[in-house]
């Protein structure tokens, strides 16, 4: 069943492939112009590498949360979300299919955009396999965030505005504009509570500053990332399960 849901999600993505190219163009153009504005009318090449990690993570979070929310709402409006929950499997397990398809799409798209920007702008990283650990944890972190917002979408009609605010807050504060360690200390604390920020910081240490996994573990940053990802995934799964359960009891799985 999970496999079927994943395949269904991927088929829907493929059916909407015409929107992928403009989506990629929007991301690339947006990144380049942000850099341009921060430079006050010119580009600052030294900022490319540290901010690209934040921007790529934002792209991941943007696509996952958008697809989770819009996918949930579309199925609610079409009446097919109720049919899905005729299954004996728990709600959060069923949502894993959509989540898996969404994550595959998001990783693919942000990967393409990142590679494109790296080639076009000549960005250099010290590529190391160890970086896959914070990248994987960031994906889990974002997946939990997507589940959480999917849960909110079932309950709250003004989810569009909430989604917009949360996505933009991640963009402003996760290091996509300014590396987090340059922020004032109170803002660093706030930004590290958001999804993706800790993943960006750990990835930066490995890919830009040459730290090893042992080093990021011993300075506590990897531990915090691990805790954040586990907490986000747990909270997202519990919230989604609770939201679906309540909507099933109250007959609220149909259109808002």
């Amino acid at each position, binding site marked *: 069943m999970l496999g079927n849901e994943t395949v269904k999600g991927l088929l829907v993505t493929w059916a909407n492939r015409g929107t992928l190219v403009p989506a990629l163009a929007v991301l690339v153009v947006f990144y380049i112009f942000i850099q341009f504005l*921060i430079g006050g009318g010119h580009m600052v090449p030294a900022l490319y590498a540290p901010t690209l990690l934040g921007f790529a993570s934002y792209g991941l979070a943007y696509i996952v949360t958008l697809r989770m929310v819009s996918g949930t709402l579309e199925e609610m409006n079409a009446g097919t979300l109720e049919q899905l929950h005729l299954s004996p499997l728990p709600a959060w397990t069923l949502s894993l299919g959509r989540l898996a398809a969404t994550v595959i799409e998001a990783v693919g798209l942000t990967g393409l955009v990142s590679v494109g920007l790296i080639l076009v702008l000549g960005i250099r990283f010290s590529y190391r396999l160890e970086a896959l650990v914070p990248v994987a944890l960031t994906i889990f972190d974002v997946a939990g965030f997507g589940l959480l917002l999917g849960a909110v979408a079932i309950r709250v009609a003004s989810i569009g505005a909430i989604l917009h*605010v949360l996505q933009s807050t991640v963009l402003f504060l996760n290091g996509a504009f300014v590396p987090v360690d340059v922020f004032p200390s109170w803002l660093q604390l706030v930004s590290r509570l958001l999804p993706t920020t800790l993943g960006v910081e750990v990835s930066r240490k490995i890919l830009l500053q040459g730290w090893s996994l042992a080093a990021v573990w011993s300075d506590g940053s990897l531990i915090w990332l691990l805790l954040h990802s586990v907490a986000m995934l747990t909270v997202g799964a519990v919230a989604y399960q609770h939201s679906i359960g309540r909507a099933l009891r109250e007959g609220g799985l149909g259109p808002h």
Partner: protein
Amino acid sequence: MSSSGTTSRTIASRTLGPRAVATAVGNEIEKGLFHAWGERLQILIELPLFLIFFLLAALILGRGEQIVSGHVDWRFEPARVSSLMVGYAAFLFIYLQTAKLFWRLLGEVQAGTLEQVYLSPLPAWLVATAGRVLATVLETAALVVILYLIVFAIVPFHLTWNIQALVPMAFISVSSVGYSLIEGGMVLAWRRVELVHELALGLMVFFSGALIPLSQLPAWMAEIGRFTPISEGIVGLRAVLIDGRQSLPVGGDGGVLWMVAISAAYLVIGIAVFSLGERIARNRGSLGRY
């Protein structure tokens, strides 16, 4: 079928007296205000976002070298805040006007109520925008006042208030309405144009001089930027509110001629594109089909 609909609508429009037209437009304005009031929660939720973006932009724009060095001076420069506030307010207007018209049309298409617009004897483009403009003016004004007060409490900045400011504001409103009609026409014809909408408004914030004045943009960007709906209005608005000019020049950037030309062009093109989109949708019979 579509031609007979057009004919009957044209006949009805001709038979409407000025008072009936005023009543119909007044009703649309009232409906727009009800819509705006219904969206107050959404605006309230998004307000912190507008504020955070403004404050962050005021702090980091042009500070790339400081960021690279790792030592950013996290203090506001009042002159930069003044300039940014003017450009940002103008951008907020076109953003709200376009986004609201765009999503409202899309919502009506999805709900199947768009065809009801054609029960009105008024032209569809007028029905679509008449109610929206005053609501957007009020929404933008409320947002800008709140932004202004909060930012002013953080960093006292200076604007020279002058009645002349109403001139560029009026041109910004007209060209924004024209631009929103262009996107409205695209929605009627093609439906799924969200990315075009996002890309266009995203580019506009960079090219229009809303964040960095046209005079500080590279020449090629400024040349393109001059043709965005709000750029000339922003130059004029800054001349009055920041430089304290008592009158606007006739020619050149921010001059009355440029503002008239740009806003008239956007309005005419907007009405034409909206009408074309409407015609395509009616020929396909897709006004009420998503």
